[in-house]
């Protein structure tokens, strides 16, 4: 039997869906019996990525956000995609404390948190077409049990 499991979810670019998105991922990964800390890491990373889609990708206009999650053995793969305005300079966007929207009180810590809390982070973006965030995290507690 295949050891993988996948979900795909599409939702409106609305701030009330941020908590929904991170709860979905937390529930999805629960079969690997992650620690409280691992769940917190994942929830934070998902929250940052979805918030970016809403504020930066769609700039608070209407749009759809796609969330894909996959479990492969003890690894969680997350893909969060928008079809918004894209990122001109990915390197600059990822610098800690850099924000293109200081007037919205953005701390510039979003990508830094995604990097700190996940094992891998990849940002794919085409200006005018959208951004896809790929993240990966090994669930240690699952690895030690198997």
């Amino acid at each position: 039997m295949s050891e993988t499991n996948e979900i795909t979810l599409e939702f409106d670019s609305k701030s009330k869906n941020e908590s929904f998105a991170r709860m979905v991922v937390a529930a999805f990964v629960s079969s690997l019996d992650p620690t409280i800390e691992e769940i917190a890491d994942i929830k934070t990373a998902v929250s940052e990525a979805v918030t970016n889609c809403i504020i930066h990708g769609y700039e608070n206009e209407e749009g759809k956000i796609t969330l894909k999650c996959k479990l492969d053995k003890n690894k969680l793969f997350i893909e969060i995609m928008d079809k918004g305005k894209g990122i001109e300079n990915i390197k600059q966007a990822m610098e800690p404390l850099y924000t293109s929207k200081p007037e919205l009180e953005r701390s510039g810590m979003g990508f830094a948190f995604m990097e700190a809390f996940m094992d891998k982070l990849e940002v794919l973006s085409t200006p005018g077409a959208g951004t896809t965030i790929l993240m990966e995290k090994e669930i240690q507690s699952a690895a030690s049990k198997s």
Partner: protein
Amino acid sequence: MENNKEELKNGNEEQSNAIFEVTDHCLIIKLTSELDHHCALKIREKSDSLIAKGNIKNIIFDFKEANFMDSSGIGVIMGRYKKVIFTGGKVAVTNVNETVDRIFRISGLYKIIEKYETIKDAKKAL
């Protein structure tokens, strides 16, 4: 009266994100939901309207009921810090759990704000 009506209306439409109290020139914001971008927008609006009345020196964010925060929370706390610092005010956080504490540590926010066990401790120290 108009303000009261507005609050009631918001309260009915969606659960509120925090309880606001002002005592002894200190604004206490008791967070009642996870502090993310969605919640941060509301906290910012409500706290700034209270700060604008000119009666507030220090601010305490209480996390007893909030077990999650992301970088939007950092933004809202830093934003309020910038408002009170000019008048010699301080910002403190209380009842911070492990998860939220880690966000504060990684972001370096403890360089500008103080952490206390309880609201009472914070009020005494500020």
